[in-house]
Structure formats: structure tokens, C-alpha cells
């Protein structure tokens, strides 16, 4: 596994985690 591959996987996991966090925040705001 090259460094680039690991970097891309890590960046994408961060982006996906940020998406989950954003949806949780939005849901909390919209439903209360």
C-alpha cells in the first residue's frame, strides 16, 4: 500500500466523518 493510497483513504474517511457530523448537527437543528 503506497503512501498516496493511505493519504487518499484517510482524507476520504475524514470527509465521510465530516458528512456524518454535519447531518447530525443539521438534524438536531431542524428537529428541535
Amino acid at each position, binding site marked *: 500500500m503506497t503512501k498516496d493510497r493511505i493519504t487518499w483513504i484517510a482524507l476520504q474517511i475524514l470527509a465521510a*466523518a465530516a458528512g456524518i457530523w454535519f447531518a447530525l448537527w443539521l438534524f438536531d437543528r431542524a428537529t428541535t
Partner: protein
Amino acid sequence: MTTAPDTVPLKRAFWILGSLFLVSAGITSLYLGMRSVMDIGGYCAEGGPFEIATHCPDGVPALMIGGIWIGMIAAFAYGWASIGAGIPSFVGLFWPALFMSLGWNFLQYAFDPPFGDGIVYGWLIPGILFELMGVIPLWIMFKTVGLTPRSTRVRSVLAPPGAKAMATAMRAVVEARKADAPSPRPDMVSELERLTALHRSGALSDDEFEKAKRRLLA
């Protein structure tokens, strides 16, 4: 179309990460929306000229519909951007993530319903189905293309069933033919007989006969 990951342009990287962010947010919205609808019994309605028995929780319809549409459009954009860039792509995980997370809701609420006791079979069965719909493609994906689908490997997955077996069989036939190529010629026996006759008659010396025979049998 595989470029080295270090050559991914900034604009493409923005598309990849931005669309993945939206897909992830979309699936999470659906997951949360589904849970809040299940909390009030599993169904709700808004709008239309009807008398509504169970209203939806505030904000949930917009978030769920938005989550579906934005998530779906972003999923296509992400698939295009990530596979085209030749980087490890999570696109194959979207379907399993969607079905396994919603299936998880069904299973959890089936065993622990918000109203009453006991197992809710109307939620248990879709839960099991959703988990299977998620886990089977996930397993197949890791068995075949993995996270980095290269164009040739994608093509072999998209080929009609049996195409791979057919290709393997054809390759085996070609290989077998190649191996058989230096097979003995059918006229070799008559050639040998002629040589022997010439040798006996004295037209060929012992030495010449041996040489010719060796060349013929080589």
C-alpha cells in the same frame, strides 16, 4: 484511465471530497429521519388534502427527501470523480452503507419497539432483508474489485454471467494447441521407411542414414 494519485488536480480532489461529504450526510439524514419516524410508530404524513392521523416530526420530511436526492446525485458525482482519478474509491460502499444502516434501524426497533413489548416481525423481516441486501454486495465487492476498480477489472465484473468461464476455457484451448504444435507429422513413418530402404540399398552410408534419421526425428 488510471492516473497516479499524486497527479489528481485540486479541482478533482475538491469534487471527490465534497461529494463524499454530501453522500455521507445524505445517508446519515436518512438514518436519523427513519429513526425519528419509527419513534412515532413507523409512518407519518404531511401535506395533501387529507386528514392526517400521524404528523411527521418537524423538519424530518425535508431532511429525508433532501438526503435521498442530494445523496444520490452526489453519489454519481463521487463515482465519476474518484474512479476517474484512479484513487481508492468508496463508491462500492454506498449501497451497503445505506442498506445496512437502515437495516440496523429495523432490527433494533424490531427487538426494542417504542410501543409495546415483544418482537415486531413487520420490522424484523425487512431488517434481515436489508442487512442481506447490504452485506452480499459488500462481500462480492471485496472478492472482486476491492477499493480500486481498474477499468479492466470493472469490465470483467460487468461482463454477462459465464463470460469469465468462457474466456478461461478459450484461453485453455489456445494454450493446449500451442503445446501440441510440434506434434509428429503423419508422413514421418513413410519417410523413415524410405530412408531405411535407401540405407539398405547402399545409397546412404551409415553416417548419412544416422544424420537423416536424427533430423527427421528431431
